[in-house]
């Protein structure tokens, strides 16, 4: 009952004209970037973050979250029409979506993707609404050792699932921790790793690293080669986008499967929507009466992964909002955004900022409806984005990146830092280092060091405090188990196979 009252309050916030407008802008932009291969929600949120500084935090969060889940809708369009996933989470949608399009059912495939995204996205928000409050209450019992252990576990999970080489993932995470250490020490006045530059005393702004690594790194990587796929014709008219009753009936289990698996995977740090979509596709194929037809253009092969990757968004918001622990690069950027606005996601967030939490939850319901209504009739319009030439798009991204960084501090030094982190972003892509552990290490670095040092202050330097408390001990043991998994050949084969499938 309390949840319903709070949700009602949330709808009052979400339906305010200003919030409604920015929610629309967010989901529209999200769909547009989802359609564009090579530009993801993480890069977009990072680039647009500085432009939200003048907005009320609730409005800004609603817009940025709209970009996040809107991109999931958009990613399927290129997968189906071009056989090129707009987002990594849409890789698996190519398998059956593109085949459906080649069989003349492009409209139905796009329609199923939109309907499945809507159903699963709504289920994901429902899960967020029901799971977040009790988890936040549980989180209230956490002290520094538990927080440290939780962050270690989250990072371990991300490292486990971020790349084929765990060593590289760990090194990327350590690089993030190092960047986070730059500036004045948290507890003393020692300046660390500032290279004699006064501009580094306040540390490296997260926005610079995020834009450099995600936006510029992606663009430099894409500049390596030019090549455009052949787009299948875009179906015109709403009628041509609606699946048949038989197709919808075939998808009913896929809608449920995608919703549940996506949400559960979303709650786990590190797994992310790509893994959610693959697992959901695998389950759908395993229980299907005609598994041999998967890959030839079956509607369930579109519904399950598209549902999972949308439901995952609601799941990913749970640890972010209730414990302040992001599970992916995009949620790490959202966490940084919260911190920039002076908010601290964690167990007290729902109590202290009910407008923001419940407004966000309600806006996600509203946003999902907007996306369904928008997406079906506007698919031909969004598909036009694919015709935008790279040589027009990339200079725009360069400009937004510079403006995004300069707007935060008005400092040209920061623009030079952007040049450096752009090169780093390209290098880690080229050398096959995952970027998610780097960003998570950067975002969690300060908090992790603070929690560790506070724990040791509490225990007067005795490290046993980390393992003598049941919750932190359990989480640390889990972290060790996760990091040791690759040592077991069979577990590592499964992990590498899953990551290879993810492309």
């Amino acid at each position: 009952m309390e949840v319903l009252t709070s949700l009602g309050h949330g709808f009052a916030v979400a339906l305010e004209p200003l919030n409604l407008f920015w929610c629309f802008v967010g989901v529209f932009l999200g769909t547009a970037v989802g359609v564009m291969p090579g530009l993801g929600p993480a890069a977009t949120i990072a680039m647009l973050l500085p432009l939200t500084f003048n907005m009320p935090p609730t409005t800004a969060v609603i817009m940025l979250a709209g970009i996040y889940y809107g991109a999931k809708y958009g990613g399927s369009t290129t997968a189906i029409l071009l056989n090129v996933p707009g987002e990594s989470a849409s890789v698996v949608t190519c398998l059956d979506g593109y085949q459906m399009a080649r069989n003349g059912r492009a409209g139905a495939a796009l329609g199923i993707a939109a309907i499945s995204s809507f159903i699963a996205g709504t289920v994901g928000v429902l899960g967020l609404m029901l799971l977040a409050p009790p988890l936040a209450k549980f989180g209230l019992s956490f002290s520094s050792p538990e927080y440290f252990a939780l962050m270690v576990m989250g990072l371990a999970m991300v490292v486990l699932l971020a790349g084929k080489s765990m060593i590289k993932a760990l090194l990327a995470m350590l690089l993030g921790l190092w960047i986070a250490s730059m500036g004045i020490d948290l507890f003393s006045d020692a300046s660390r790793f500032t290279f004699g530059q006064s501009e580094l005393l306040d540390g490296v702004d997260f926005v610079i690293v995020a834009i450099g690594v995600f936006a510029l790194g992606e663009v430099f990587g894409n500049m390596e080669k030019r090549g455009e796929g052949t787009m299948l014709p875009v179906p015109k008219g709403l009628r041509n986008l609606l699946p048949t009753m038989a197709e919808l009936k075939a998808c009913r289990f896929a809608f449920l499967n995608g919703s549940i698996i996506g949400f559960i995977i979303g709650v786990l740090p590190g797994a992310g929507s790509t893994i959610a979509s693959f697992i959901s596709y695998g389950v759908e194929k395993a229980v299907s009466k005609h598994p041999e037809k998967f890959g030839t253009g079956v509607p369930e092969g579109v519904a399950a992964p598209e549902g999972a990757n949308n439901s995952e968004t609601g799941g990913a918001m749970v640890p972010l909002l209730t414990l302040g622990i992001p599970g992916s690069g995009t949620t790490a950027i959202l966490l940084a955004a919260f911190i920039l606005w002076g908010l601290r996601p964690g167990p007290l967030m729902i109590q202290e900022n009910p407008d923001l939490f419940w407004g966000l939850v309600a806006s996600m319901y509203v946003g999902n409806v907007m996306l369904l209504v928008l997406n079906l009739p506007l698919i031909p319009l969004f598909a036009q984005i694919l015709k935008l030439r790279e040589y027009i798009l990339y200079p725009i991204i360069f400009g937004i990146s510079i403006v995004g960084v300069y707007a935060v501090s008005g400092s040209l030094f920061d623009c030079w830092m952007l040049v450096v982190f752009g090169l780093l972003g390209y290098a880690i892509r080229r050398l096959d280092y995952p970027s998610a552990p780097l960003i998570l290490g950067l975002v969690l670095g300060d908090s992790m060091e603070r929690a560790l040092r506070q724990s040791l202050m509490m225990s007067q330097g005795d490290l046993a405090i980390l393992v003598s408390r049941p919750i932190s001990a359990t989480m640390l043991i889990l972290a060790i188990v996760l990091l040791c998994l690759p040592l077991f050949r069979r577990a590592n084969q499964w992990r590498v196979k899953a990551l290879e499938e993810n492309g």
Partner: protein
Amino acid sequence: MAQSKWIKGDVISGAVLAALGAYIVSEAWRWDYSTAEGPGPGFFPIWYGIAMVVLSIVLVVRSGLSAAPAEKTVDWPGIGRALTVWAAFAVCVALMKPLGLLIALALLTLFVVAVMYGQSLKVALAVAVGNAAGFYLVFGLALQLNLPAGPLGF
């Protein structure tokens, strides 16, 4: 052309990261490891610096000793294209102070369109002017952001 198994991305990046780890440890060594209140500013960096050195060495050794064929043929022309654009981006940032953002961005756009994508000068000029004008309208006029201005006042 076959390349030495010691000259490949993992070995080189591992060596660079090992050096960075050593630098982190050497810097952290100069700060207090612990104080009367608890761990000092050197405590955390020393440990992750050591971890970085150890993991980098493991990466270098494993990669260098692996008998498996080295990575796919390196796409040097592709890397050259990417690094050229990165250098152009750096020049754009350098030109922001003397010329202002809009002119610097227009020049970068001109370079990308004409040189990297081989479009005609007419197309390149149109895109460059359009891009700069768009930024002026959206960020300068509509959002009233304080952008680096050049001698012409924009």
